[in-house]
């Protein structure tokens, strides 16, 4: 690599993200006029895809506070910046919340009137309770994000160890809260699209998938930051090795969880459960299912097995880009057949809206990231490669 830039041009990246996002959203606008049904379906997928990153940041941040490790120190600023975007994430949910009947059949009184099962589920699946639960999830996530960022700033200012304990306490409780809220949110926002169907492992699939999206995003960002000071001097191949190993673990966990759900439903072969897979394996969605097996599991599994790939920032970033793309494919495969059944029906909005929502979110994330120093909070804990040895020469 040639000469290193003195500092990262975060403002330039932000402008680019905003521009791309703005253009994609503007391009999607005619879709809203022409086919509002499709617009909100595509918008929901785009929203779920990007909302997984702030929640994933929250989870990884709390995990890092609890278990430590240099991998977490070097990405902590990014994770914290991610948790400071919940206000925007809530705003981005508004179009969904304002159009519940378009997306969720349990929100249409005329459908519920003819559906015995939905009448039984109405105690849980009704608009008021749905909005209340969503408000609760955001309140919990924002409170956790607020406390974690506040104590982190205090830790940086005071340089004492007292704040570390507080961060750990918040994280210990927070990780339980995270598990419950994200499980319920995935049931509310996604599983209830098909209110006759249910799966108890659904929340875990979203947590694992979200963690994978987040790790991939963070690896891509870190590979950019590695090209300039101060991160260039701090980052070692071992950091990317660790993050690559975490990605590897989550790729396997995703496969494990996704297969578990399939095996149980396939073994049971019950009329109320099996349509989920009939829709997604038969017909043209089956092609996507095979693509997921190959490119969301087999290929990254082999690539991330190799140390050569994990230790090189720019190479690992390529794998992370593949993962981010496959995460979107997985989400489309999970969500879209709930609307359309067996036939594959990709709309151009399924491509422009993720880019649009993503551009806006990434721009806001970058502005949060540049609000604070890039230098890690606990940079002194990063062991220089054989620091004591270098002095001997």
């Amino acid at each position, binding site marked *: 690599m040639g000469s290193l830039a003195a500092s990262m041009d975060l403002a330039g990246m932000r402008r680019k993200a905003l521009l791309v996002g703005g253009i994609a959203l503007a391009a999607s606008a005619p879709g809203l006029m022409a086919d509002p049904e499709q617009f909100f379906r595509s918008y929901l997928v785009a929203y779920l895809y990007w909302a997984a990153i702030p929640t994933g940041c929250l989870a990884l941040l709390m995990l890092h506070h609890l278990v430590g490790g240099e991998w977490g120190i070097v990405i902590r600023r990014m994770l914290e910046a991610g948790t400071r975007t919940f206000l925007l994430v809530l705003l981005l949910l508004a179009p969904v919340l304002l159009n519940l009947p378009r997306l969720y059949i349990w929100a249409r009184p005329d459908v519920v009137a003819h559906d015995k099962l939905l009448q039984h589920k109405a105690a849980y699946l009704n608009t008021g309770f749905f909005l209340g639960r969503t408000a609760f999830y955001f309140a919990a996530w924002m409170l956790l994000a607020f406390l974690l960022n506040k104590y982190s700033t205090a830790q940086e200012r005071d340089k004492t160890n007292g704040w570390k304990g507080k961060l750990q306490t918040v994280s210990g409780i927070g990780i339980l809260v995270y598990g419950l809220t994200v499980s319920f949110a995935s049931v509310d926002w996604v599983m209830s699209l098909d209110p006759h169907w249910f799966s108890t492992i659904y929340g875990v699939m979203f947590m694992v998938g979200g963690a994978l999206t987040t790790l991939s995003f963070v690896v891509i960002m870190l590979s950019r930051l590695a090209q300039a000071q101060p991160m260039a001097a701090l980052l070692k191949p*071992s950091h990317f090795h660790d993050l690559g190993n975490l990605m590897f673990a989550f790729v396997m966990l995703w496969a494990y969880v996704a*297969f578990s759900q*399939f*095996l149980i439903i*396939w*073994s049971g*072969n019950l009329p109320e459960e099996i349509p989920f897979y009939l829709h997604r394996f038969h017909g043209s969605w089956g092609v996507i299912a095979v693509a997921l097996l190959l490119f969301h599991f087999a290929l990254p599994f082999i690539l991330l*097995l190799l140390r050569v790939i994990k230790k090189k920032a720019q190479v690992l970033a390529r794998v992370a880009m593949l993962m981010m793309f496959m995460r979107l494919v997985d989400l489309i495969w999970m969500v879209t057949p709930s609307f359309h059944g067996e036939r594959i029906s990709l709309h151009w909005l399924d491509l422009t809206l993720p880019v649009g929502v993503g551009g806006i979110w990434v721009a806001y994330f970058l502005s949060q990231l540049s609000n604070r120093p890039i230098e890690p909070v606990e940079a002194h804990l990063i*062991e220089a*490669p*054989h620091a*004591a*040895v270098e002095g*001997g020469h």
Partner: protein
Amino acid sequence: MSDFHAAHGRLYGLMAEFDNRYDLIEAAKRSHAAGYRKMDAYSPMPIHGLEEALGFHEWRMPMLVLLGGIFGCVGGFSLMYWMAVHAYPMNIGGRPNYSWPAFIPPAFETTILCAAFAAVFGMLALNGLPRPHHPVFSVPGFALATRDKFFLCIESADPLFQVEATRKFLESLHAKEVNEVER
């Protein structure tokens, strides 16, 4: 000439003792830079970067474990296939005999089992274990390698090994003590 005989007869190598891991890593690095290859380090705990400093490239173990895993995966799946389709076909819930989703969990388990066996027994075989005695145990104070001392042993089998020169070299690396390791 007498040096040569000493190196290949009586001596296993020369053992340098260090007080901390930094000196050990530094010594390993410099020995590697000086051209020594047949050497090994002993420490009470795993040390990050020591492998690289020794120029130690171990590819046989990961390869063995991978082969074990692949064998377990293919073997487990084939076993299930043979049992369910040829040896003992059974009608389970009206499903076809060849119902691959049901074969995956056993194949997954045998993958892990065989990979773990390859790891444990491969490690023992490549280390030459079990082995009741090793020359390095004859060095006075070597037992401290399990407590708070760090050791680097350059073996006489190394082509560059010469008792006096190698001893001088090791002493120049901040070694607390350099001992001969008798066979």
